[in-house]
């Protein structure tokens, strides 16, 4: 599409028909026009003051921006009044499903409630307006918050140190694998240890991360019960293995009940034990990976610690490490430069500052892998996570995992008569069903079932993941959904199972109540239209 077939009357401004865009038209109908199509030359939302006489006079005589570096034509940004702009984005907002609107049981994503006091905290001017390079005496609050959060994450996970720098879970994985490589290099085994073992149920980020660090991925099969095949793991471990990356509980929602033996085998082979912490929400207060012998784990603050997912980010993926990898953490890290840690903690837990305490950024870490992100990481997410951990406290965190596990097991037993349950055993925070029966008997795919869920106003589970389960539906209710909501979901899923049997065609036509129907993803990929472009655009070539 884009310009050629965009609707609308011809625009006398000569900027192209798309600029005058309106809904309707013969070739295409539009739910909400693009912001560009709402643009009218001369409109504004925000104005800025003019420079003062004095400033202008003082600037004379200073070098101007040279002609060779100047732009020929202004960028084609849209022009809207503030109200038009706001309405446009409010209308777009109405097209979204979100946690704050309805149940969102997207497995492996931990779509729990995002408390509003967290947002209040992150917006405090003393924090939001803090510049990352402000001299340390001006940034003691930010540094103390980071230090305290790291302390809490260490308490929770049993690791001895934490870096807050990684901006997402996958970024934490990259950090962990770079540290792994540095560790083996310093042991003189950098050349020899080239393989990373990854279970077949893993997130795609694990093997992709291994590749980014130059490692070869070896896939380890799962056993019949959904755990890692310990025999296969032992067979694969050897002097050429750098690390095992394992998600625990796994992406099947199952705790590795031989995790002690897994960790022991990995460490005995001289490899690094990496735990993907994506599913930490299931085990708070029950299993501390650092204490259990893991060398490194990333946290997902946007999963376990309730920072908003934001439509796909920002997240935050701090890494915790044991002693073997501590020297390699990204630098700098916030430290308590002066003061007694126990006293500072005790005071902070009581809501008090500690006189004489001084926080600093320690960049003097000679074996560090370096920086993985600019500044200090996604600080705004640290504020939210800290607020959340302090709100819940130790007992609250334990309750979170208990209730998350309870809810997922409840769905397991309530739904197992309607859908195939490949691993019928107590699960943790999520449970995987299979739509293979519906596919085989009625020709209705899991995708169709997911689309039917949309017509009930709920977000569907994660589908087709993990890859080892045919027609997978991965359901993670989280701890913040009430029993009534869980029951309603159960009844929706039963209704859909009934509809699949009675009228499969109607399921294949779903959704019918959403702002748009099923979209032609094949056409989108075959002939990519990745940007709006107005007619007669001279600054840029138009895309293929």
């Amino acid at each position, binding site marked *: 599409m884009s310009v050629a077939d965009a609707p609308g009357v011809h625009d006398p401004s000569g900027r192209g028909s798309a600029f005058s865009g309106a809904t309707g038209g013969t070739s295409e109908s539009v739910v909400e026009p693009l912001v560009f199509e709402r643009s009218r030359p001369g409109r504004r939302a925000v104005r800025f003051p003019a420079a003062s006489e004095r400033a202008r006079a003082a600037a004379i005589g200073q070098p101007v921006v040279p002609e060779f570096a100047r732009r020929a034509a202004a960028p084609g940004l849209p022009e809207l009044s503030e109200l038009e702009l706001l309405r446009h984005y409010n209308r777009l907002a109405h097209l979204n499903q979100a946690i704050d609107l309805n149940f969102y049981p997207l497995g492996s994503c931990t779509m729990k409630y995002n408390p509003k006091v967290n947002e209040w905290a992150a917006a405090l001017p003393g924090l939001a307006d803090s510049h990352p390079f402000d001299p340390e005496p001006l940034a003691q609050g930010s540094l103390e918050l980071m230090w305290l959060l790291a302390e809490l994450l260490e308490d929770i996970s049993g690791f001895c140190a934490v870096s807050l720098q990684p901006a997402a879970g996958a970024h934490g994985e990259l950090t962990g694998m770079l540290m792994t490589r540095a560790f083996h290099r310093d042991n003189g085994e950098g050349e020899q240890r080239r393989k990373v073992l990854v279970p077949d149920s893993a997130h795609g980020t694990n093997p992709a991360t291994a590749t980014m660090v130059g490692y070869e991925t070896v896939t380890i099969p799962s056993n019949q019960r959904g755990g890692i095949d310990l025999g296969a793991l032992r067979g694969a471990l050897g002097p050429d293995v750098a690390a095992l990356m394992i998600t625990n509980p796994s992406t099947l929602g199952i705790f590795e009940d031989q995790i002690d033996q897994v960790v022991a085998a990995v460490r005995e082979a001289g490899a690094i034990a990496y735990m993907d912490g994506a599913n930490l929400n299931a085990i708070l207060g029950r299993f501390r990976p650092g204490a259990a012998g893991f060398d490194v784990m990333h946290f997902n603050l946007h999963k376990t610690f309730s920072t908003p997912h934001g439509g796909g980010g920002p997240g935050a993926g701090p890494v915790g490490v044991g002693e073997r990898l501590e020297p390699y953490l990204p630098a700098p890290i916030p430290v308590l430069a002066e003061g007694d840690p126990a006293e500072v903690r005790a005071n902070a837990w009581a809501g008090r500052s500690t006189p004489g305490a001084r926080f600093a950024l320690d960049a003097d870490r000679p074996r560090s892998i370096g920086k993985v992100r600019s500044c200090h990481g996604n600080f705004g997410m640290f504020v939210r996570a800290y607020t959340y951990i302090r709100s819940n406290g130790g007992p609250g965190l334990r309750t979170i995992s208990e209730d998350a596990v309870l809810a997922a097991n409840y769905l397991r037993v309530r739904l197992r008569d309607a859908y195939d349950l490949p691993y019928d055993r107590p699960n943790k925070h999520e449970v995987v069903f299979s739509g293979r029966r519906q596919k085989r008997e009625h020709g209705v795919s899991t995708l169709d079932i997911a689309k039917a869920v949309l017509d009930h106003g709920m977000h569907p589970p994660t589908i*087709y993941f993990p890859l080892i389960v045919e027609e997978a539906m991965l359901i993670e209710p989280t701890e913040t959904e009430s029993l009534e909501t869980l029951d309603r979901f159960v009844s929706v899923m039963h209704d859909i199972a009934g509809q699949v049997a009675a009228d499969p065609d109607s399921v294949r036509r779903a959704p019918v109540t959403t702002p748009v129907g099923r979209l032609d*993803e*094949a056409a989108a*990929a*075959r002939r990519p239209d990745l940007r709006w472009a107005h007619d007669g655009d001279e600054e840029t070539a138009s895309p293929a």
Partner: protein
Amino acid sequence: MSYPDDAVYSREHEWVRADGDLATVGITSFAADELGDIVYVELPEVGSVLTQFATFGVIESVKAVSDLYAPVSGNVVEVNDALRDAPELLNSDPFGEGWILRVELSDPGQLDTLLSAAAYAAETN
């Protein structure tokens, strides 16, 4: 499902139709159906050399990606440029307009190592 008898097949779901030392290569309708809507094919260059059972390209559908394995060894003499703009031909006509490339066979004897249409049909059942 049945498959054209004038071709031979690999277990990686490629077909080969030989005409003397020249052979045309494509993917089977079984492979195309498994992948779903094919959106992109990475084709080798004319003049490149295929080695039997080694990868020579990549094929993408909306939600999957798969390597292409050479069913035979030889020099690539022609590639199907129509697939660049219309990869959907691999879905709509995999044994015809959706052919991928032609090679000059370096070892026509390799054809004997491949499966007949009936054998391939049995394998994919």
